[in-house]
């Protein structure tokens, strides 16, 4: 059984006049410790897929099971706890908090689970060490380069020890050299046991991952 299971997922965006079908009857299974790429042209629904997997949004139809648990009908608070424990996000535009320094940014997920300040500090430092940014602990996001920012974001994503990492175009805003650094880091994490689902439009990067699923107009194609 896969660690992530999507069955019959449909997501429709409705505005006053227009109805957009983002995903239609999607089935997908992600195995544990897998490194999966999701590809497709702009507007094909891949980001929506990731959002649903990350419980950032709710599907209109279908079932999502993560780590064996059925997430349908989960209340807001339950989802928040679940996300905190099981998932880690990496976004294309980093989404670091500008008014907090690097260390505080990385600690963020730990704030929302029972922990002492000392524990938080230690875990954050350890993880920053791992991504090679210990020397930038007290700096602010505005003082970092694109690659450094994304590494901080990854540190934040893994500080809580989540089983699953969801990355939405992690190298989209970076040049090729920085992008490669980020991919190296992700591969390292995957080797250490994390399941990674990555959305990308870069064919070259996708090919280095274990599996690719493709989407077109909201439907899986192969």
């Amino acid at each position, binding site marked *: 059984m896969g660690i992530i299971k999507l069955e019959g997922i449909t997501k429709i965006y409705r505005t006053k006049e227009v109805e957009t079908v983002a995903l239609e009857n999607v089935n997908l299974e992600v195995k544990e410790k897998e490194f999966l790429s999701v590809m497709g042209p702009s507007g094909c629904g891949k980001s929506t897929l990731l959002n649903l997997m990350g419980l950032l949004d709710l599907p209109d139809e279908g079932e999502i099971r993560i780590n064996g648990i059925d997430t349908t009908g989960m209340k807001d608070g339950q989802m928040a*706890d679940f996300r*905190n424990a099981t998932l880690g996000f990496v976004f294309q*535009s980093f989404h670091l*908090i500008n*008014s907090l320094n690097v260390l505080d940014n990385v600690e963020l997920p730990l704030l*929302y689970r029972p922990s002492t300040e000392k524990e938080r500090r230690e875990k954050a430092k350890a993880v920053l060490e791992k991504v090679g940014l210990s020397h930038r602990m007290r700096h602010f996001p505005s003082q970092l380069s694109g690659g450094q920012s994304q590494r901080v974001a990854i540190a934040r994503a893994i500080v809580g020890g989540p089983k699953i990492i969801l990355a939405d175009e992690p190298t989209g805003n970076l040049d090729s050299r920085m992008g490669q650094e980020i991919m190296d880091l992700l591969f390292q994490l995957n080797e250490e046991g994390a399941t990674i689902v990555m959305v990308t439009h870069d064919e070259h990067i996708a090919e280095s991952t274990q599996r690719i699923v493709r989407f077109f107009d909201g439907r899986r194609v192969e």
Partner: protein
Amino acid sequence: MYKLYFKQAIAMLKQNKFISLIAILGTALAIMMIMAIIVSDNIKTISIGAEPNRYRTYYIPTMMERDTVQNSWMTGTISYDRYQGYLSDLQTPEYSTIMSRSEQLVCREGESEIHTLKRRTTGEDYWKIYSFRFIEGAPWGEEEVQSGVKHAILSESATRKLFKGEKAVGQMILINFVPYRVTGIVEDISEIFNMAHADLWIPYTSIDNYQSWGVDMLVLMAKNNSDLPEIDREVRQAEKKYDASHANKVLSYRGPAKHSDYQLSGWASTNEDAAVKIRVARRKSLFIFLVLLLVPAINLSGLSLSRMKRRTEEIGVRKAFGAKRHVILIQVLFENLITSLLGGVVGLLLSYGVIYQMKHWLLGVPEDSYIPFNALVSWPVLLSVVLVCVLLNLLSAGIPAYRASCMNIVNSLTQNDK
């Protein structure tokens, strides 16, 4: 957790200096106005210093008598014959004194330099109700008042005016050309104690023909402030006693009034009139507070809403990483509270400035009087300031905070990715 919110709030204030300044100024202004009113009120009603018993002191300042035959009314200060035998025998109060105040010409015997001083005439209980520090001498007691001896107690500054450093106790002074002996000197007190303040004190019995004069005020101090209903009953009984022995006359005393109520309704002629005045005064205060809170709250709400828009991204991230709704709500309210409290401190200090400048209007004291520190900074004042800040905070940040916590995560994250 809160340390982090605090750190972040400070960092955000620094990053948006202009808007933060406007928010803090707006809060400070509101707090300044509200605290000016609250602190003034506090000064007028708090039990400290020379009037440590305001909370259990009651006043009977005037009377009204109706003639049922001629259908005419007479109102005014209580005459001595309507005090003696009626209000002089009240059992419930612990202490009671009659009291008048007027300006008198005072000079030393044989000297031509005449000063106009504020003279108070009192009974012996006066010195037990109010608190004075005697530099020399002592207050008079029951025997002195009974005998009507012409003894006077001077304030420190009055002594300096008259005796210019010479020893005063034992010397003679002329009050309206009537000789009195100085038997005590008290430390000056602030004019905010408007019942205790004077330049010189004499027993009311020392005035010739005092029985034909009126009584400015009867002051009663109870053992506990729960004794008021009992005192009221006794006063009403005194009225009936008078009516019984005076055909065709109906007497009503105004009072016994609490110190705080008397401040609001001093000029009313009957108790019913006073009650109306107090009701109106309370409604007026409420209305003014509403306006003073509401207008800045609307201002700050608009500001908070705009600030919120800038933080949607951050809130989305926090929620993505596990922050629940109420956590976001508390965070936003807390951060806004920092601004409110900063504004509150500034506002409180500004309000002191306002009170100093507008002493005459707000407190009814002359421009050159001083206000004791513990009247300005007291527990009720500090508690009020915090309460007002929290109230203002809730009013101005409540809705924006709630809306922030309910935001859809995906929309928040993609807000700026257009």
